[in-house]
């Protein structure tokens, strides 16, 4: 795990780079890639659940972004625009490949019963919860995982998600509902069975 310098770059500076890139400044676009690729890679891993596929998604996503940067109107944040391209690219790739699952829920520990977001002193529990969530996300089918990741982790709207995945808003809501339910089942019922066995 590492900190991204994307957030620390400052919105104005990134805005300037985006404006220059829209005018065809390749150097400015390269700098945008340097600052944002960790963020994009993280999303790609969460969507594809494999490092190899995530690499392909990142490369293709930035290629699409460079080709389409003139069409970026700037009425949304660049990061949101990049998330949408990444989601679309990952959806395209998942239609071509079968992912390999390597994480098993047997490794998941007991649930954390604390108010993790409100207490900074509970960093260990936060880390544990995130590790369990990451593993549980990997267990979801790709079409459900995409909805949970894009909506609940990255905060994209149902409309944006539906557009990038090529589905209706209703379908997006249904998949999110199913994804959350299955994630909850993975997190708590598997843990319950594991605890019973011990």
């Amino acid at each position: 795990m590492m900190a991204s310098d994307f957030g620390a770059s400052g919105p104005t500076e990134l805005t300037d780079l985006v404006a220059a890139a829209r005018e065809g400044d390749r150097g400015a676009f390269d700098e945008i890639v340097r600052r944002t690729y960790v963020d994009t890679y993280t999303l790609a891993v969460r969507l594809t659940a494999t490092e190899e596929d995530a690499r392909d998604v990142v490369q293709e996503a930035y290629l699409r972004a460079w080709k389409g940067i003139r069409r970026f109107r700037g009425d949304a944040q660049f990061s949101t625009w990049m998330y949408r391209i990444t989601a679309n690219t990952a959806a395209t790739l998942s239609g071509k490949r079968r992912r390999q699952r390597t994480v098993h829920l047997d490794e998941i520990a007991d649930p954390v019963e604390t108010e993790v977001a409100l207490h900074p002193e509970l960093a260990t529990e936060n880390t544990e919860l995130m590790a369990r969530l990451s593993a549980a996300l990997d267990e979801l089918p790709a079409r459900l995982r995409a909805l949970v990741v894009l909506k609940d982790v990255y905060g994209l709207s149902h409309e944006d998600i539906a557009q990038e995945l090529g589905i209706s808003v209703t379908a997006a809501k249904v998949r999110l509902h199913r994804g959350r339910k299955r994630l909850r089942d993975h997190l708590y019922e598997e843990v319950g069975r594991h605890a019973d066995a011990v």
Partner: protein
Amino acid sequence: MPMQCEEIADLLPEVVDSSEPVALPVQRHVESCLRCQAELARYRRMLRGLQLLRTQYLEPTPGLLAATLANITAASERRAVTSALTKRRLAYAGAVAGAVAAAGTTTVAVILARAKRRAIAV
């Protein structure tokens, strides 16, 4: 008829983040049912955990940045070559079309001139 916990459990994934309105009977049931309150708490914890994932970054595999930039460069070069070829083809096609048009115009003019001379001779 009062709602059952199973019915509530099916609704919770949809209403946990308040993005969808909650019917009054659902709200009343949850307020009076410890089992459903516990279930709601699980969903809320899960959502908070998912939001925390947004602050966690994964370290890219080595060489990804260089490969990404090289990929863009290669695509840009291919695009430039294609564009140059397209321009050349367009220029060639334009020249051919011009020549054909000129030849056609000349032919038509000659035919018209002959027809005019024949008409005068008659």
